[in-house]
């Protein structure tokens, strides 16, 4: 039980990073597509 708790406490952070990475990548790709449609730069 203690191992599970400690393991989760340590590994939850890389998992959260992975989720944020996916959100940012998806949003940026969406922005990129929109920028191309509107024929303007991404930044």
């Amino acid at each position, binding site marked *: 039980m*203690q*191992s*599970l708790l*400690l*393991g989760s*406490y*340590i*590994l939850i*952070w*890389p998992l*959260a*990073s*992975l*989720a*944020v*990475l996916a*959100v*940012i*990548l*998806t*949003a*940026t*790709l*969406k*922005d990129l597509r*929109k*920028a191309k449609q509107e024929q303007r*730069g*991404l*930044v």
Partner: protein
Amino acid sequence: MNDSTLFQFSTLTVLLLLLAFYGGTYLLTLLIKDKKENTDAFMVSNHRIGFGLGAASMTATWIWAASFYAAATSGYTYGVSGPLHYGLWGALMILFIYPFGRRFRKLAPNAHTLGELIHARHGASSQLILASSNVLGSIISLMVNFTASGALVSVLSPLSFQAGVIIAGVGVLSYTLWSGFRASVLTDFAQLMAMMAIAIVIIPAVLFSLGGPAALVDNMDVLTPEQANLFSMDAILNQGAPFFVAVLAYAIGNQTISQRLFAVREDHIKPTFITATIGYGAIVIGLGMIGLMALITGIEPIDGDMNNLIPQMVSMYLPPVFIGLFFILVIGSLSSTADSDLCALSAIVMADVYGKNIAKNNPDPTKMLFIGRLTMIVATLLGVIFASFSMDILIMLVFVGALWGAIVFPVIASCFWDRVTNTAFTWAVVAGLLMFCLARFELLPMTGVIGVFFELLGSAGGGVVIGLMSFGFFGRRAGLIIGVLGALVLAYFTLGFLRDYTVLLASLTAYGASTIVCIAISLLSSHKFDFQKISRDVGNYDHNAKAAQS
């Protein structure tokens, strides 16, 4: 358990790694390079940054090299709760500035710096106080990040400290100089993607190389009762509370954050701040866990230097390719913050110094761009020169944050309360700084009546911090009630006790003194400011120049 040396790259390998990183980053900026850059784009990308890039840039800027080292140090020193007391508060501060950020953006939708807003609100003296504090903070940040590069290169390769400092300085300047903020945002995105991917791999890799959670649980008895306690008072008072107070000021007083606030599309501010909060917390707390793992496995930092903890753990337990990844992780974090500092400094000199005070709102955009780029070159030179003075990163972080503590209340109050005057702003900052110095450097003996006086000021400062946070999210009435109650509760619990925690006392004193002076002088004034004036006075420079020509 210990290993007295770290893994060493050959000179060629480390040079190739740096060339790959800075060369790749430079090539990336060529994708967006315009022959003739626009002044507003150079400073805030024409206020049109989307959610993905905005969140990535905010996160990458907020994470600097010290974040990893200090989070790991906190985990190693304070045990289970240590990484939280570094990363969680740092992350929450991004969220905390969101409601105030929305107000700043509403008041001055076309601003490039917070100083411009304060200039329209109060005039030059208050603006220059804010701008000077931003310049000081960004120069220190540049110095710290270049120092981190020098330290990393000298620890992991035969190259000298100075070589690492110079390579980072030249590398960051090379890709930021031409396109400014646009280059910073684009490269922040790439750097953050790399940092996240590396953190996602390194943390579990270290854990399972140590034998997994079961092996750590077997060693948990090496922790002291305080280190094993998730709610350790020792960790709260020595790490969490001073850091919380310091980064609150850092978030408000730092142009790198306000620059992104003014650059993100207005309808994307909320998701940007929320994503950056989670992203920062996840990466920094996660890497702080490496410090906790080092503590549990009984690792002693080489030469007693806590900054060696993460490289040491990676060196001891993972194959060389992971050390290469860690190297890129640190170089990426320090470069993304350093390029943001260069952009922040250039925007301050372009808008606050040249635009508002020299050209008097009628600047020449070409000259403005030249001044911005020149500022970047001078700032890089200063950062590289100052980096030769090695200073403790965590203490400096707290010190600069506390220095900005004196500015937080006057800035926020000026944006919500129409009675705050330029005099109130200026004297509040002076009083806050003065009282901070008296407490921080113990220029007065913190005993007897003086000790009680400072503890009361500190309690008032604590109430201000809690009150401002409540005000941001729940409104004026809740902010006032919770702030006053918070100050009273703190005074009850901290009298005769807070004086033992100099850093915390000094930081809170800065908030308390500046708030009291700001409110007192403002109440003496019957003048009421028209907030509509701010959006009329703060505009885009390129548009202004075109309008003036026509």
